[in-house]
């Protein structure tokens, strides 16, 4: 067997991280107003919006659905942002459960912020990106809140995942 990390594993890990941060912000809502700066987000709430909005928009693109404009997505409150995540996960689950879905098919990404080499990607790579995107940003956020004096005790490493075996 060739060892690999399945998208189902990554989706489970993604859900664990999203659930952690949702609960952490529910318990510590003042954190959402902290200045941020990551990905030009002025504050943590905008950064969280970026994370979960990206999940939904990439999932829509993978599913061939109309991609909702950023300006049409809510800026808050937290529950509305978490709903973006849940919508994205629901779409990804549908794709993962579709045996006819061709993960090797390439998609042209006509985004000027992408370097030329990255403007063609397989659906598999895009899905991998979606699911790692949040993990990398949560790691950044854990650093930001700790430096600001509010350590989260977030154990984001895959080895600590309860769902990935």
């Amino acid at each position, binding site marked *: 067997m060739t060892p690999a990390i399945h998208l189902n594993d990554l989706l489970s890990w993604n859900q664990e991280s999203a659930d952690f941060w949702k609960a952490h912000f529910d318990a510590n809502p003042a954190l959402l107003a902290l200045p941020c700066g990551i990905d030009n987000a002025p504050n943590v709430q905008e950064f969280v919006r970026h994370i979960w909005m990206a999940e939904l928009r990439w999932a829509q693109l993978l599913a061939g659905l109309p991609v909702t404009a950023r300006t049409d997505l809510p800026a808050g409150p937290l529950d509305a942002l978490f709903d973006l995540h849940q919508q994205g996960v629901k779409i990804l689950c549908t794709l993962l459960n579709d045996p006819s879905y061709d993960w090797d098919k390439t998609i042209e990404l006509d985004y000027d912020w992408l370097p030329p080499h990255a403007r063609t990607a397989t659906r598999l790579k895009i899905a*991998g990106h979606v699911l790692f995107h949040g993990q990398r940003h949560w790691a950044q956020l854990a650093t930001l809140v700790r430096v600001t004096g509010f350590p989260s005790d977030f154990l984001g490493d895959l080895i600590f995942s309860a769902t990935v075996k």
Partner: protein
Amino acid sequence: MTPALSFEELLAWSDESTQRWFQFLAENPAVLDLPCGIYGTSNVLGLVRHIVVVEMRHGQRLSGETVSTYEQFPGGPLEALLDLHNEAIAHFRKLLADSTQDWAAEMEFTSLTAGTLRSSRRKLLAHSLLHAVRHWAQLSTLTRAAGFSTGFAGDLLLSSALQ
């Protein structure tokens, strides 16, 4: 078959990220002295050491070798830490090229931070490859706040590791 990213692809992405960071750090040595705090390290050099020591220890563990203690690894300089990373990557490549490896087998080991853990060898290898990716993301937050721009992004979408 459920869609999956191969470990060769993950390894290529992880190594690509690490090589970029080492190049950036070699060109911006002042960053190594920045106060850090991630994983309890006092400065960025300490975090870089943590990243590569973890890779090496898991590489030894998965290879069935004696696992060196944290203290047995050099504290620097940067070139010595890059050697450690390259050695760990060589361990992982050798394991991935060996078709007899049982990746579903479970193993128990002592973590530096969380005591005794149990996981499949597959999960431990995945963790070994992603551990650095997460720490580099954290470091990017720290260096940006300190006024240093790396000029590169670590997202998988931007990686040349897979199509």
